[in-house]
């Protein structure tokens, strides 16, 4: 079994959308999450707050430096993700296909490093 990260990228506009517009997506994702839990593949999942609430700390120099905002300058950041434990990429792509439909965005599938 391999752990896969299924991540969704979103822009700042997505965070600005009104709640009632987002509700159908929340419902679909909630249902999808339940299906994943029932299937026994669930490791972890979560949605992330807006990237402008991020803080970066860099302690590679003489002293730690704290900066406001996300690390990468970008128009899209990871907005949410699932971590599932699955037998192979085809199965992961099937789950990602449903995830993309539920959350209404493209989903990137990426395997974790092995634990051996």
């Amino acid at each position, binding site marked *: 079994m*391999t752990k896969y990260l299924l991540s969704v990228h979103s822009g700042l506009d997505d965070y600005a959308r009104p709640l009632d517009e987002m509700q159908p997506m929340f419902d679909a994702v909630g249902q999808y999450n339940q299906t994943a839990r029932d299937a026994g593949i669930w490791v972890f999942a979560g949605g992330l707050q807006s990237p402008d609430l991020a803080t970066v700390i860099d302690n590679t120099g003489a002293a730690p430096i704290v900066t406001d905002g996300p690390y990468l300058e970008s128009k899209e950041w990871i907005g949410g993700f699932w971590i599932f434990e699955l*037998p*192979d*990429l*085809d199965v*992961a*792509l099937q789950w990602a296909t449903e995830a993309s439909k539920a959350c209404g965005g493209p989903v990137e*599938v*990426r*395997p974790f490093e*092995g634990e*051996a």
Partner: protein
Amino acid sequence: MDSDPEPTVSIERIYREEYGRIVASLTRRFGDIDIAEEAAGEALLAAVERWPRDGVPPNPGGWLTTTAGNRAIDRLRRESHRDAKHQAALMISDDSPHEPTGAVEDDRLRLIFTCCHPALAPEARVALTLRLLGGLTVAEIAQAFLVPETTMAQRITRAKKKISVAKIPYRVPSPADLGERVDGVLAVLYLVFNEGYLSSSADASPIRDELTGEAIRLARILRALLPDAPEVTGLLALMLLTEARRAVRVADGQLVPLHEQDRGGWDRDLIAEGHDLVRECLALRASGGARPGPYQLLAAINAVHTDAPTAADTDWSQIATLYAQLYAVSPSPIVALNRAVAIAELDGPALALAEVDRLDLATYHAWHATRADLLRRLGRSAEARAAYDAALALTDNEAERAYLSRRRGQLG
């Protein structure tokens, strides 16, 4: 035991033919493409050493597979104390029951689907298929696609790493996905064939029979593995009917268009085989099969062409009908361009030119070449000359350039 006058040539030919089978079966057994490839290479070395001395064994493929399997086990035993993963692989192989012979064919089918998986970059799918199923060396594949050997080696290594790390499965897709995934495999084979049929490069020879030959060989394997997939049959027929014309497609370094080819130089055996396959597709359709896909329709078009004793005998109305059907399943401007060529024969060049001018294909050399020919037939020489120039500017294939230059020079 046979004694072979040219044992090295024979060993290499057998090895090349058996390579896909050996790698497929070892990949299944050891769960690792690299181990399978290394072991296959060691089996070749053993054959080169022994066969000239002892003769070629009665079942050379079986000998190579068994030898490769033993070499892989030796290697895993040697390395097992320092590599837990290999140890695990060895344990799996020890636990598994002996595969019946029939499963060997399934292994090769598995390997084709793994090599052509949509999660791999298209150029990596082509390279992996030629390497693992075709047994071509990395150097040969690099040369075929005119990239440096190191680039091709990296491309293949990266693809194999993705297969192993992301766990691209080694199995025939489920029935729900099979159609789409077979289409992906056919696209890879057709790409290999087309690069051989009309090389896109100035540095390569205009027709690369090593690539068309390899594509046909792989299509034959795929058809043997999936006899009930009509598009597989269609693609094989299309390739055979195209390959049948190879010997006369280039003369004196110039591409010879279909209507000028010496039909006596066509390969009658390949044409007969291609026609049989097309008939098989038609029979399947007549007995309630699915609507024919693009490869079957292209094969049927080529069957009509190769059925005509002279160019003047060509049944253009049937060809136009088939292109119309093709356009219905695959509405691309390139299909519309080819349909226009048939319309020129049926309804004259003026009508065809009107069709062609509607297409948004200004970056495609064949669009300009078709326009040039239609303008020439309409006596509009100055415009034809400009169109030949535009076509010449867009193609690097030497034989095609030679043909276009000659036609341009013949304008009044």
